[in-house]
Structure formats: structure tokens, C-alpha cells
């Protein structure tokens, strides 16, 4: 179910330029806050821009940030968690202690501080979300590696003289990846929300770039006159998050029955 919805969503995101009936930044003074119609199924906003086209492009950008941020955190978090869990002892402490510190800070506060340092923009948001997720990914990877490294086939491969590095990458990693996959999926859903929240606060994408968070902010100001400006981007966020959650649940049943992912 989740996979099917997501497949459609990804296709929509990729094909946004083809699907959008109008340019996302096309201003039309004659259509200010016009309601849904055949030509503009989602209506238009305060500047007469087509809401459907804007939602499509904004969704494309948000999904890109969400996927990119999780991939970035996987790239750093998986090796850290794997080595920490597999080697254990002092290396474990050395690698995980700084990440625990990161985890102790509230996520949004962390993101806002990072943006304050690095400046606004989608790329900064992507990096900020990746940093927020890094300790989560690393911890799940570590916990999973800790379980897998005690499995008989791991001891068996060591007893055959397979090098530690190979045991870790060839035997522990593939068998420990399931819960990380589940966690990453769930985090992508949350990333859509975080990206929207940061843009809503004016810390993410900058106008006129279409962004779901920015659209919510625009629509919020005219909510009483034109509900459609807010509702459609809101729905886009909700549907995407739900789809990721459903996919995460499905993957969890299959790849993480023990519930290692948080």
C-alpha cells in the first residue's frame, strides 16, 4: 500500500514539469485567490499563481530534500554505527558518545542553529536534517550490528579466518541492514515535515521557490478567504508522510520483526 502510493508520488514528482498545467511562478492578476475551476483545479493564490502547479513543483523539491537528507545521513551513519557495534569497547564509546550529545539537543533547535550559522536555503536544510538524523541512523545500525555479530554464522566466518573487515562488511552489514532500511523510510516521512516546518518559519526555501512550507505560510495568511491555498499543500504533506509510514510498517514486518528500529 505504502509502496504503491509512494511509487505514484515519485512519478508525479519526477514528471512535475510535464504534469503542471501552468508555470509555478506565473503571476496572473486577474485570478487573485480564485477558487478551484476546470482550468485551475486547486484554485490560485494571492498572486494569481496556479496552486496545483505550485504544489507539484513544491512537492518535487520537498521530496528531493527529504530523500537527499536521509541518504546523506545513511552515508555517514551506517559506517559509524557498523564499526561501533561490531568493534565494541572503546571504539564504540569514541564513535557514539559525540552522537549521543547530538541526540540530546532538540531537533528543531539544532536545525535553526545550523541555519543561523550556514544561512538559509534548501541545501542547508538538507544538511541540517541529515545531521539531525545521523545519530538515529547510527544508533539503529549499531544496535542491529550488536545483535548480528553474535549470530553463529558470524562466529563461524571468523573461525574460518575471514578478516575482521570482511566479516563486518560482508556478513554483518547485509544481515543487519533491515532495521536501518525501516528507520530510513520512516525518517524520510518525517523529513518532509521538518523541511515544511523550517520553510514555514522562513528558514528553508526562499521565495519565489515553490515549497510546501512556504505555501502553507502564504495560505495561512488568507485562510479565511481561500482555503484551497493551504489545504492542498497540507494534503500533499499528509499523504506523503502517511505513505512513508505505511511503507515503513510494511518493511518492518519483513526486515525488522524484532523491532530494532525506533
Amino acid at each position, binding site marked *: 500500500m505504502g509502496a504503491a502510493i509512494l511509487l505514484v508520488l515519485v512519478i508525479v514528482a519526477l514528471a512535475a514539469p510535464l504534469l503542471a498545467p501552468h508555470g509555478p511562478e506565473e503571476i496572473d492578476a486577474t485570478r487573485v485567490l480564485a477558487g478551484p475551476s476546470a482550468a485551475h483545479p486547486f484554485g490560485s493564490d494571492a498572486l494569481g499563481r496556479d496552486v496545483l502547479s505550485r504544489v507539484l513543483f513544491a512537492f518535487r523539491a520537498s521530496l528531493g530534500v527529504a530523500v537527499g537528507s536521509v541518504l546523506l545521513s545513511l552515508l555517514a551513519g551506517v559506517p559509524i554505527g557498523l564499526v561501533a557495534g561490531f568493534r*565494541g*569497547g572503546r571504539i564504540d564509546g569514541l564513535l557514539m558518545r559525540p552522537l549521543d550529545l547530538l541526540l540530546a539537543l532538540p531537533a528543531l533547535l539544532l536545525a535553526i542553529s545550523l541555519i543561523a550559522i550556514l544561512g538559509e536555503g534548501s541545501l542547508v536544510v538538507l544538511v541540517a536534517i541529515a545531521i539531525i538524523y545521523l545519530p538515529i541512523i547510527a544508533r539503529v545500525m549499531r544496535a542491529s550490528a550488536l545483535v548480528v555479530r553474535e*549470530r*553463529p*554464522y*558470524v*562466529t*563461524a*566466518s*571468523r*573461525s*574460518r*579466518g*575471514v*578478516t*575482521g573487515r*570482511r566479516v563486518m562488511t*560482508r*556478513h554483518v552489514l*547485509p*544481515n543487519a541492514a533491515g532495521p536501518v532500511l525501516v528507520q530510513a523510510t520512516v525518517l524520510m516521512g518525517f523529513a518532509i515535515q521538518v523541511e515544511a516546518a523550517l520553510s514555514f518559519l522562513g528558514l528553508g526555501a526562499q521565495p519565489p521557490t515553490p515549497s510546501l512550507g512556504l505555501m502553507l505560510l502564504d495560505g495561512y495568511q488568507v485562510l479565511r478567504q481561500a482555503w484551497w491555498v493551504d489545504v492542498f499543500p497540507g494534503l500533499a504533506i499528509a499523504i506523503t508522510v502517511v505513505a512513508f509510514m505505511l511503507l515503513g510498517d510494511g518493511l518492518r514486518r519483513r526486515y525488522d520483526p524484532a523491532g530494532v528500529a525506533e
Partner: protein
Amino acid sequence: MTLLELEDVRVDYTRGDGSSVSAVAGVSLTLEAGETLGLVGESGCGKSTLAAAVMGLLPTGAVTGGSARFDGRELGALTAEQRRQLRGDRMAMIVQEPQSALDASYSAGSQVAETIRAHRDVSRAAAKARAIELLEEIGIPAAAERYGDPPHRLSGGMRQRAVIAAALANDPALLIADEPTTALDVTIQAQVLRLLAEARERHGMGMLLITHDLGVVAQVCDRVGVLYAGQLVELAPARELFAAPRHPYTRALLAALPGPRDTLPTLPGRVPDLGDPPQGCRFAPRCPLAMPKCSVAPALEGTGHQTACWAVERPS
């Protein structure tokens, strides 16, 4: 030629709360090339810990003492990399739970080849060819076609054969078999034991067979060591041990074998807590022959048939 020489080997595990568990308490034994030595005892008596200590596969936090020499080399003096080079090459192990000793992410055959490539500088193709040869030798029909089969597509007996093929891949001088037949049904058990015996004869390999199955021991072992709570209480030629057990624990163990009797005798008391083991002989609290002297651990004494017990008459 003496292959393995253990002298007063001790292994302590450190528990999370800082206390320690004495899993192996001063075990001394030797294993000759071509010999099969059985190690028997209840679960938790230190059999597997002893095997892990020899292989260099103890978990972190384990503290070892005493001396273990393999091929005349002191194992404790070797680096981690030197120990790795021994594992799977000169010394091999069939781990407990052989049914899950193969990684389900790879084919059984490729794990045999992996063992070869861990020690020999050969091409992927050459390792595969050799692995197929080994699988064929060990009795897997049409090994070339089955090479790519994932472990779950093999029957229990076939999987166990693949595990043995991986262990024997580099012609080890020492094979430690930790409960190699436990999860198998009786007919396959017999086949596996025959395979191991054949391999031993072909390569003159020394074998340390760890089991709690006295029937298996009687079938294949030259000598038998009996472990109780981390102490080796008796070490004797198999025939002699079964015919004339001397240590009170061995006697109780053999008496507990089911036979044509109405009732099974049981041994009163329970295995001591190894976090706080009894002083001296650890069997003393349950021993019908216990005496004050037992608070000092008796050494394993005797020639040929060795016993660690004050109550047993031993040739000095």
C-alpha cells in the same frame, strides 16, 4: 607429535556489574596429531569456552591465563592477525549450531571458497573450483550445480556437509568440532561422524570433539576428558573411561545414561554458580566421597588414566 598442549588454562568472563565468572579453571591436556579427544560435560561446564580460547574467538572482556601451545607456538604470544591466519588454515572449528553456521545471504559453496581465499592467494575461479571439489569429496552430489544454492535450499545434512567442507578447506592440522551432530537426526549423525573420521585419517588431523553425547564419544574418540564446572576431572582412554570410571562425577554421569533399568539415578544438588565457585574441587559440594581435603583442588594425576580426585587411589 604433540599438536596442542594446554597447561593450566583459565578463562574468566567479566560481567556487566564488574564481577567475574570463572568459566575454565586450570585445564591441562594434550592432543596428538591424528588423535581424537572427546570433551564431555554438562552445558555450562566450559567446553565451548575452552574451544573459543584455543581458536582465539573469546568475546571481549574474557581474561585468560595459563599456557596454550599449538604446533609448539605459544598462542597467547601471537598477534590478532597471526591468530586469524591460523584460524581456518592450520586450525579449524565447526561451531555449535551448525545449522545456522552459514550466512543466509550467500550460497553455501561461496562460503567454502571464502575460506580458501582468506588464506590462499588464488583467483576467485580457482577457489570456486577447489570448493566444488571439496563439496564433491564430502558427499554433496552434483556439487557444481549446487554451488550457488543458498543454505536454506540445502537439507540439514547437506548444510552440515558444507560446513564441514568449509572447515576442512585448507587441510587443518587441528579440528575443533563443537557439538557437530547435536541438531541432526541419527542417520545423518552417523554419516557426519564417519566423514570426520575419514578426514582425520586422510590428513592425519587431530580432532577435539566437544559434545554432551556420550554415545558419540564412545564411537569415535581415542581419549576422553570430562569437564565439570570448568575443571577437568578425568582424562582417560575412551575404552577405559567407560569400563572403569574413577572420578565420582564421571561415575555419576555414566550411571545417568539410560539403560535397561527401571529408574534413572540422579545426582543430588546442582552445578555451582561459576561467579562464586566452591574452593578447591568444584564437585565437592555434591560429591558422596567429599572430605575436608577437597577444599584444595586436586591435580590431574596418573599415567594414561588421569583423575583429579583426592578420594581416588592414584599411582604417584
